[in-house]
Each structure stands twice: as structure tokens, then as C-alpha cells.
């Protein structure tokens, strides 16, 4: 016992799961849909993914380096943001768009507000909406294999017809790189839930409320083909399972998560039924993000043994 012993405050044991593990698990969960996107849309999708992820990681590194802050690219959160943003791009968009979006996501949405844990909206979605508003033409150009194709939601709105069920579920439709395959997204989501990374509360409530809303206000009643097209044909599966569940920008308690899910479901329904855009998930989640502090104000857990009515000692 020549060495000095270590002393520190209790507890002296720690669980093995760390933040970077959680982020890595999210990356793994996104693999099926990423692989499907590359397979479905071709090598252009792979280039988008590489460019966007690189833009995010490099801008995070440079910002922190220049601001003399600890370098946190090792926590993989920038990589997750980059991958999510890439999955939200149409393959026909120019490659620089992912780079612009990545820089915006990391610098403006995340770092300017204090970095990981401090951003009030999902960086990938913030960037997507920024790109949608700035470069609407590029961001809604769903050309692939040199053919301009409408997404299932566009077709549904314009012609009232829905693609085949098989196409919807496997993802053999037009759309952004990562949103088309419901089955690939669900495999990833199931993985996240089973690994304890996310709880299913937000996505389940979100999708259920959305389906209910569409059934009532969508104009087609509870027609399962119509509803399925809305659930699997746009960005809902990707948004609900991978973006609405972002720890930083969603409520922390179960009660809060339920309320958050309800709000997202209603917003998405509103935007899709009454809005001008066929999509609505990104806007719904971002608006929901802004409401999180208010939701949390009313959903903090009540301590064991403290009488209701909020007695504060002293």
C-alpha cells in the first residue's frame, strides 16, 4: 500500500452505460434504414450520408477548438445528428446541401445554445426545416433513377390513391433517404427499446393520436390503407421513433412524454390535413420541442411522502 488511495464522494460504483454508448446504439439502430436507403436510392445516398456526418463532426470539432472548449466529438452526438439529417434529405439534392445543413445544425441549433444537452430543438430537424425553407426546390425534389416521382403522401393528396401495402412497408417508394422503409425503421426502433435506450411512450402515443386524428379529420374515415399510407408513407416513422425521442428536446418524465406525444400527433395531423405541405412531422416535432419547458413545468414527479399541494419546507 505505497500508493495513495483514491478518495471521492459516494457512490463508488457506477453503471457501465455512458452517454457515448447510448449515441452509438442510436447509430446502430439507424443502420437498417441507412442500408436500405443506400440500396434503394443508390450510391448518391451514401455520399449524402458521408458529407453530412462529416460536416457535423468537423463543425463541432472546429467550433469547440476555436472556442477553447472541451472537444466532445467522441460522444458521437454530432455523428447522430449528421446521420439523422442525411436520412432526411432527398437523394436528388446537391451534395453541398447536407454540408450546409450540418453546419447549421451543429453551430446554430446546438453549439450557440451551449452544446450537448442545452439545445431546445432537435438539431437535425432544425437544420432540415432551415433547408426546407431556404432551398425548397432541392429539398422537395424526389427524383431518383432520373425519374421524378411523387412520394406516397403527394400521390395521396393529388390523386387520392395509395401505393401498394407492400411498397409502403418495405419502403419501395419515393421519399427522403431514410424515411421510406417502415420495416427497417421499426427494426431499429425495436432495437432501441429492447436495449433500453428509449422508451416507446412518445412514439406510441404520437402515432396513436395521429391515427385517431387522421381517422376523424382526414376525410377518409378509418380506412386502413389511407391511414397506413399516412403512417408509413412520409416522415412519421423516422420522426416519431428517432427524432421525437431525442432526450435533450423531449420531456423527461413519463407523464410529460405522454403529453408530448399527444401534442405531436395533433400537430402532425393538423399540418397534413389543413396545411399546404404534404409533410408535417418536422414542424410538429420542432414546435413540440419548444413546448417542452412548459410541459415539464406541470409534469415534474411528486416526491414520496410530501403532501400534495406542494408544501415547501421552511
Amino acid at each position, binding site marked *: 500500500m505505497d500508493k495513495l488511495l483514491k*478518495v471521492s464522494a*459516494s457512490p463508488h460504483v457506477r453503471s457501465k452505460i455512458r452517454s457515448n454508448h447510448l449515441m452509438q446504439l442510436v447509430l446502430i439502430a439507424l443502420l437498417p434504414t441507412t442500408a436500405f436507403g443506400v440500396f434503394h436510392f443508390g450510391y448518391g445516398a451514401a455520399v449524402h450520408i458521408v458529407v453530412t456526418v462529416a460536416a457535423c463532426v468537423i463543425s463541432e470539432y472546429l467550433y469547440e477548438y476555436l472556442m477553447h472548449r472541451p472537444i466532445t466529438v467522441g460522444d458521437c452526438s454530432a455523428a447522430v445528428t449528421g446521420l439523422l439529417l442525411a436520412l432526411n434529405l432527398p437523394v436528388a439534392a446537391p451534395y453541398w446541401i447536407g454540408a450546409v445543413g450540418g453546419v447549421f445544425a451543429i453551430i446554430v441549433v446546438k453549439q450557440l445554445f451551449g452544446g450537448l444537452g442545452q439545445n431546445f430543438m432537435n438539431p437535425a430537424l432544425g437544420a432540415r426545416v432551415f433547408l426546407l425553407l431556404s432551398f425548397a426546390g432541392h429539398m422537395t425534389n424526389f427524383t431518383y433513377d432520373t425519374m421524378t416521382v411523387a412520394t406516397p403522401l403527394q400521390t395521396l393528396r393529388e390523386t387520392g390513391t395509395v401505393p401498394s401495402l407492400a411498397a409502403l412497408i418495405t419502403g419501395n417508394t419515393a421519399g427522403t433517404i431514410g424515411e421510406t422503409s417502415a420495416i427497417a425503421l421499426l427494426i431499429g426502433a425495436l432495437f432501441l427499446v429492447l436495449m433500453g435506450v428509449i422508451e416507446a411512450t412518445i412514439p406510441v402515443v404520437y402515432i396513436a393520436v395521429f391515427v385517431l386524428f387522421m381517422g376523424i379529420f382526414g376525410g377518409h374515415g378509418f380506412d386502413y390503407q389511407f391511414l397506413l399510407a399516412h403512417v408509413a408513407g412520409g416522415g412519421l416513422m423516422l420522426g416519431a421513433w428517432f427524432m421525437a425521442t431525442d432526450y435533450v428536446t423531449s420531456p423527461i418524465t413519463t407523464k410529460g412524454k405522454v403529453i408530448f406525444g399527444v401534442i405531436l400527433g395533433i400537430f402532425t395531423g393538423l399540418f397534413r390535413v389543413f396545411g399546404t405541405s404534404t409533410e408535417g412531422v418536422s414542424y410538429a416535432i420542432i414546435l413540440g420541442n419548444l413546448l417542452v419547458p412548459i410541459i415539464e413545468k406541470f409534469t415534474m414527479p411528486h416526491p414520496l411522502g410530501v403532501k400534495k399541494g406542494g408544501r415547501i419546507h421552511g
Partner: protein
Amino acid sequence: MRLKTFSGGVHLYEGKELSKDRPIRAVRPEGEMAYPLQQHIGAPAKPLVKKGDRVLAGQKIAEADGFVSVPVHASVSGTVRTIESRTVASGGKAACIVVENDRQYEEITWPAKRDYTAMTREEIIGAVKEAGIAGLGGAGFPTHVKLSPKEPDKIDTVLVNCAECEPYLTSDYRILTEHPAEVTEGLKIILSLFPNARGIFAVEDNKRDAAKKLSGYIGDAGNISVQLLQTKYPQGGERQIIYAVTGRSFDSSMLPADVGCIVQNAATVYSVYRAVAEGRPLTERVITVTGDAMEEPCNYQVPIGTSYKELVELAGGLAKEPEKIINGGPMMGNAMFTLDVPVAKNSSALVCMTKDEASRYDATACIRCGRCIEACPQRLAPNRLAAYAERNDKEGFQAFYGLECIECGSCSYICPARRHLVQHIRRMKRDVLADRKKAVQDK
């Protein structure tokens, strides 16, 4: 039997297999003994001996100073060398009576065994106080004070806390397995103070064999039962165990007695039996010496006052270089920078670890994953409380019930960002409570 429990908490690596099946071995120290005057919550004891006095094992060497205080007894025979300030297990300095061990182990003449059923309430509580018993589970609250609530008739439940939810600890388990009759008698003694109470052994289900043994000794005592609890940390927290067994809850301004409960740790109940029925003061305790750095993890019956250094040698020494040594369990115990401190009444374990997980990673930003909220057995929001504490915002801290924290450490354990949540909250609690004390004094 359905397992009862509380909400929240964490599942930990137990590490109990290291020492669980090792019977209690009595050890006799040969070196110098040190008896801190304060091994309990309350006023320090007043020394009754002076330098040069010869003392015997079992002799009272310091008396209680007031009601919330307990006496201290010598555990070996020898000569008082000095009374001086020494480093104690908590890391601070405290006045200790230092006794040169003469290795004769000469004892006082013990009183004859007593029939506690013939004793009055005052006699029983007096015997507990005179034996110097303070909670052996770790907190060290004087037991006779706990046994003297304002309205004893309103107590309807006496819980024997046999959860032993801290990892690595097996001392209570060994006491329950080896002395079930004495522990049961101890509970009967306590129940005799509370005419309307039933007694419950609350045991985590990783100690089913101990629970079974206890059931056998309860026999036809209709007012005693065994309740199995889910194995989960902090099942043995006072408010958690009361909630799990009775469904009652109370806040930090109240005591268990306010909801009709008295909770005593298993080792304490064993000491109560020894004190009341056998007239033996608290001079030794069972302690688990364990961890992956120990040559031979085991449970020892150790005279209080023995140096930890000697205890480690008596226990077969260290097998590997330890990086961290903990007094108590790894969740709530404190890390020691030296082994040159005495075993005290509330020393439940000595855990020697070759790896210090706590220092392995730096704290990173909170990602709001919510794991601390899920884990908090008090249903608080540790991430928020710690943030208030870091900003020194006492109002925010109190508005979110920071004082309800029991400092179990589940939040820090589970935090994937490795934030020092309970550490910040603990410090803020101290500050807020100190402010209040000052405000009362200023009035």
C-alpha cells in the same frame, strides 16, 4: 409470497457471493485500540477514564452526555494511553480514548442473564442506552431514542430492516443465519415496549434462506411475520422499507414514528437482545471485510476500536494493491485515505477495491435522458436539483424538494454522463440546513 418494494431504485452488481457463505469469525486484536467519543448522532460521550487508568473489556469508559447520546465501552483490557484527536473512518478528526491493549482480554464480571418479560419499559430502554447501542446499519442514531417515541401506543409496526441492500455487505445476513433465535428475541423485546405493534422482518429476496430460518424461529408468536422484498437498491432506506411494507410515506420533516413505525437494523436488534437479556454492552460488531483486493473476503466479529489496518491483517491481508478502500458499502460508504482508523459501532463493512470506477471518467453534459428521475427512490428530479446546487440556487433547490433527498446515490450510479449528482445535492442540503440552523439561532 408477493414481493413488496418501492418505486425507482437501481439494480446493482451485488458482490455478496464473495463473503456470503463465510461464517462469522471472531478476531482478537493485539494492537492499540481507539474509541471515538462520538460513534453516534448526537452529543459526544464524556470520558470517565484518564491517562494511566487500567480498563477491562466491557467497562464503560465514557458516559452519555444527555438523552441523545450513548456511552462508550472498552472492548479489551489495557491501560488508557491518552485521550486525543485522531483520524476516524469518516475522514475527519475526532476525540478518541486510546487504550494500550495488554492482550489479557480481561473482562468485567457480567451481570446474570435477565428475564426481559419481567422488566419495565424504563428498565429496557435504560438497558439499551447503557449498552451504548446506536444504529449499526450505518447512520448511528441512538437506539434508545428511537425506542422512545412520544406516543408508544400509536406504534403499530416494528420493522426489522434485513434488506442489506448495499452491495458486498453480508454482515446482517450472517447474523440472521447464525443467530436467528437471538434476533427474534430482540424483536420480542422491542415489541414489549409497543403494546399495539406487530413485528415484521423485512428481508430482500436474495436472502430467502435467512427468511426461512427466521420463519422457523418465530414459531407461534402471532404478532411477528417475515416479509420478502424485491432485491433492489435502496430497499433498506428507512422511508423505502416503510413504504414497501406498509404503503405509508412521510417527508423529511417527519419521523417513522409519525406513521406508526419503528425501524431497526438487524444487527441493532441483535445488540438489543445482547444488551437487555444478557446485560452485554456493545463492544463488538460483525463487519464484512471484502472486495476484490482482499485475500479472503469474510465476515468478522471485531472488538470496536480495533484499527482497520490490524483488521485487514487479521483477515489475511490484501491480495492486490487496492485503488480505493471504503468504510461501509460502495453506494453510501465513504472512501478512506488511510487504514489507520478504528472500527466504530456503525462500521458495517470494509470494501477494498482494485479499481475505482468513480474516478474512471469525467463528468460530461447532462443529456436529459431521465435515468436519474426513474432511479430516484424519493421521486425527485436529481438532474434539476444538481443543476440548482451547481448554481447555488437555494430557492430553486428547495422548491423542487431538494431536502427530501436521502443521498442514496442511485442517480449518480445510473447517470450515463457520469455527473456527480448526489454529491452536488448533498452539499446543497448541508448548506440549506446550515442556513436554517443559523436563522433559528439568530432569532
